[in-house]
């Protein structure tokens, strides 16, 4: 039997580290977004300075999250990257195809509610999760 040497800093441990880092950036961005959205009303009584600071913080953390995501993708192996790329392509397509008619229907009052961006974000998130699960299952 030809024994393999144990690998230091293996693919799995690197991916785990990157996932944790990405999860932390996502959490921080979510918290900053909540602060930016709710702070003016509930925390600082619509003070323009604090609102601008909250927007700046949200954007800065957002940039960090994008870089963490980029780093995560760059460190993935080629199959995992392919699964992620497919998921992103499907998500982008669904977001575009669903988003434009949704907005047009809202403009012409064809839907009984306001076309909120949050609805589109939820649809895109669910699409990404579903296509990612499908990709993982397909190459399992």
């Amino acid at each position, binding site marked *: *039997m*030809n024994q*393999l*040497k*144990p*690998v230091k800093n*293996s*693919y*799995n441990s690197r*991916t785990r580290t990157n996932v944790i880092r990405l999860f932390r950036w996502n959490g921080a961005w979510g918290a900053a977004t909540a602060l930016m959205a709710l702070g003016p009303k509930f925390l600082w009584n619509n003070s323009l300075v604090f609102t601008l600071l909250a927007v700046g913080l949200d954007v800065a953390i957002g940039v960090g999250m994008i870089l963490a995501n980029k780093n995560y993708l760059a460190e993935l*192996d*080629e*199959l*995992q990257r*392919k699964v992620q790329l497919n998921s992103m392509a499907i998500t982008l397509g669904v977001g575009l195809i669903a988003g434009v008619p949704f907005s047009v229907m809202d403009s012409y009052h064809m839907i009984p509610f306001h076309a909120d961006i949050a609805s589109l974000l939820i649809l895109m998130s669910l699409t990404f999760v579903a296509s990612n699960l499908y990709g*993982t299952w*397909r*190459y*399992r």
Partner: protein
Amino acid sequence: MKNRLKVLRAERDWTQAQLADALDVSRQTINAIETGKFDPSLPLAFRAARLFGMRIEEIFHDDDRSSLATEIKKDTYV
């Protein structure tokens, strides 16, 4: 593309996880290559060849090799 990765791995008594670690990819990728669901890139094929001490074409080969050979033969006579 077909490959002999599973046979070569079994001959050495390696698990998919061990081979994945040695090639710096996920176990899922090794499984997908072995089952023919995914074709590796050239750098990964080179890494596998180096690990097994073989040439790439001894591990990976084209499905259409016979039909390709026929086409080349045909072109030669045209």
